[in-house]
C-alpha cells in the first residue's frame, strides 16, 4: 500500500466514517467556543461571566439572557462559555499528564524483563485496583483549592493513569516479540532507541485514544471534584456551575437552565470522544461494523439522536 498523501490528508480533514466525523465536529465546535466564545459573548451580547446582577435573580432564558441567570443574576451563557475554556484546559492538562504517565509506566513495565519489569507491573496493577476517585478527592481536599485549576488538573493526571497504563502494557507485551522489534534488538539498537523508534510508533493510535479518554475523564473528574466542594469554587467551570446551582437551590426553584447546560456539555465531550473511538475501531476492525449496506445508512441517525437528546 503506497501512501497517498492527498487522500490521507482528505481522510484526516474529513473522515469517511460518520461517527468519527460527528465526534470531530463536536470537539472542534467546543474548542472554538473555548477560544473565542468569551470574547464573542461580551461583544455580541454584552455579557461577562463574572458580572453580578447582569440581570434579575434566576431569570428564565430570554432574548437578553439566552440561558437565563443565576441567583446572583449572572448570565448563565457567559458562564457556560467561560467554563468551557476552564474545563477544556483542565481536561487537556490532566489528560496529558495521565497519558504521559500511562505510556511511560505501561511501556516500561511491558518491555523490560526481570526485576524492574516485575516491580513496575506490580506497581501498575496495585494502582489499578485502588479506586481512583476517592484517592483524588482525598488529595484534592488536602490541597484546599490552592493552585487553582492547574493544581486540580495535576492531581487528576496523577491519579487517573492506571487504566491507560494497563492497556499500554498489554499492547507492548504483544509487540515486544514481533519480528521488527526483535530485529532492532538483535541489530544492537539500544533499549531506548528500540522503544522510541520501533514500539512507540506502533502504539500511537492506542496512545491517541487513551489521550482522548483521559481528557474526557479529566473533565468529568474536575466536575465531580468541584461539585462536591473539593475543588476551587471560585473558578468558573462546568463543575462549579453545577456546584453553585445545587448549593443555591436551583433544583428546588426549578431553574433547570442553570444546571442542565453544563452537564450536557460534559456529556457532549464524552460522546464526541466515544464516537471517534468507536469509529476508529470500526475502521481498523471492519468486523465491528456489521453489515455494510445497512451500517452506513444507520450511522446517519447517530448525530440526529445526539442532537435530539441535547
Amino acid at each position, binding site marked *: 500500500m503506497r501512501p497517498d498523501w492527498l487522500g490521507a490528508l482528505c481522510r484526516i480533514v474529513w473522515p469517511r466514517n460518520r461517527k468519527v466525523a460527528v465526534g470531530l465536529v463536536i470537539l472542534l465546535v467546543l474548542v472554538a467556543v473555548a477560544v473565542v466564545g468569551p470574547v464573542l459573548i461580551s461583544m455580541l451580547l454584552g455579557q461577562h461571566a463574572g458580572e453580578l446582577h447582569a440581570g434579575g435573580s434566576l431569570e428564565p432564558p430570554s432574548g437578553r439572557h439566552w440561558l437565563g441567570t443565576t441567583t446572583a443574576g449572572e448570565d448563565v451563557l457567559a458562564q457556560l462559555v467561560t467554563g468551557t475554556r476552564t474545563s477544556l484546559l483542565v481536561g487537556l492538562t490532566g489528560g496529558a499528564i495521565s497519558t504521559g504517565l500511562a505510556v511511560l509506566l505501561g511501556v516500561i513495565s511491558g518491555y523490560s524483563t526481570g526485576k524492574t519489569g516485575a516491580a513496575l507491573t506490580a506497581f501498575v496493577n496495585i494502582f489499578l485496583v485502588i479506586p481512583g476517585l476517592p484517592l483524588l478527592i482525598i488529595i484534592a481536599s488536602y490541597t484546599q483549592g490552592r493552585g487553582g485549576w492547574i493544581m486540580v488538573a495535576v492531581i487528576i493526571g496523577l491519579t487517573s493513569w492506571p487504566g491507560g497504563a494497563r492497556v499500554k502494557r498489554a499492547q507492548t507485551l504483544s509487540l515486544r516479540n514481533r519480528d521488527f522489534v526483535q530485529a532492532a534488538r538483535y541489530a544492537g539498537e539500544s533499549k531506548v532507541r528500540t522503544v522510541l523508534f520501533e514500539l512507540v510508533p506502533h502504539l500511537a493510535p492506542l496512545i491517541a485514544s487513551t489521550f482522548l479518554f483521559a481528557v474526557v475523564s479529566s473533565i468529568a473528574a474536575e466536575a465531580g471534584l468541584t461539585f462536591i466542594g473539593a475543588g476551587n469554587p471560585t473558578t468558573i467551570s462546568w463543575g462549579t456551575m453545577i456546584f453553585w446551582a445545587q448549593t443555591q437551590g436551583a433544583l428546588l426553584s426549578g431553574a433547570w437552565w442553570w444546571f442542565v447546560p453544563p452537564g450536557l456539555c460534559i456529556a457532549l465531550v464524552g460522546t464526541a470522544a466515544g464516537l471517534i473511538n468507536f469509529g476508529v475501531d470500526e475502521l481498523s476492525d471492519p468486523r465491528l461494523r*456489521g*453489515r*455494510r*449496506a445497512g451500517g452506513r445508512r444507520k450511522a446517519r441517525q447517530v448525530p440526529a439522536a445526539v442532537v435530539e437528546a441535547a
Partner: protein
Amino acid sequence: MIKETPSPVLLDVGELTVEYGSGEDAVRAVDGVSFQLRRGEILGVAGESGSGKSTLMTAVTRLQRPPARIASGSVTYHPGGSGSGIDLLASTPAELRELRWESLAVVFQSAMAALNPVMRLGAQFVDAIRAHRRVGRKEAWSRAEELLDLVGIPTNRVRSYPHELSGGMRQRATIALALACEPEIIVMDEPTTAVDVVMQRQIVHRLMRLRRQFGFAIVFVTHDLSLLVELADRIMVMYAGRIVELGSASAIYRDPRHPYSQGLRDSFPPLHGPLRELRGIPGSPPDLRALPTGCAFQPRCPKRLPECASTRPELPLLVEHGAACLLQRSADQATVDESEAVSR
C-alpha cells in the same frame, strides 16, 4: 480409486456466485462455480489464498458471514444420493440446523481457533451429539470417548481443555468431532495446514481409513496440490474465484492442462516419488477488485497468447478432465483438426 460407474451425486453446486458487499463496491470472490460431489468421494479443491476456495466452502455450507453474500446459483443436497434434492440456499435456519452435523459436517483450518477454549473437549462433542440425537448425558460422553479413540487420542483426554492438547491432537479431535453424527459429507478447509508434515501424513492416512470405514464424502480444501494427489479422487483447481481445471487427481498431477495448475504442482514437493525441481509461480494472486481483462491468470502466465488479454476462457462442460484455458482450446482444436484430417 477411479470407479467404473460413477456413484450417485450427493451435492450439486450450480453457477454459484458469492460477493463481498453489495452494489458498486461488491467484490466477486466466487464467480459462477459449478461442481458435483459424489457419494464416498474425496474431492480436492486447490488454489492459492484468495482464490475463493474457502469462501466457496463457507457458502456451500451456508456458513458465510456478512459482508459475504450469495449473489446467485444453487446448492442442492441429495440425501443418500437419492433423486430428491434439498435446496440448501432456500432452507430456513431451522431446516439447516437439522441437516448440520447429521448430514454435513465441517473441519476448520486451525483447530486451536475452532475449539471453544473454555469448554472441555468432551463437552463440545456432547453438545453436537445431543443437539441431534436423543441420548443421555452419560451416553453422549462415552460416545465422545469412542470418537477420540477412533482418531488415536487417549480417551482420558475427553475431560481436557483444548489448550492442554498438542496441536496434532487438537486437529485430530476436530476430525473426530466431525464424525460425531456420522455425516455423509465433511467439508475440510485446510485441515492439515497448521500441523507439521509428519502429523499431516498421519492425519491423511487416518482420514483415508475412516473414509473406508464410514463411507462419507469429503471436500478437501488446500493450497497443497501434491497432498491432494495422495488423497483425492478428483481435484478442482481454483483461481480468482473460478474453476480453472477439473479432473481426476492422477490426471491433473500427470498432465496438468492449465498453466496455473502446472505452476501449483511444481511449487510443492511430492509426498511420494522422485524429487522434482521446485518452482514458484511468479507474481502474486490477483486483486479481486480489479481483475485483469480476459483470463485472470494471464498477467502471470508463462504461456500467454495475445488473445488471452481479451477472451475469457470457459471450463468445458461434461468432460472428465478439462481446463479453462485458451491453449487448451487450441490444443483440443488441434486434436479435432487432426482427427478430422485423419478421417478424411
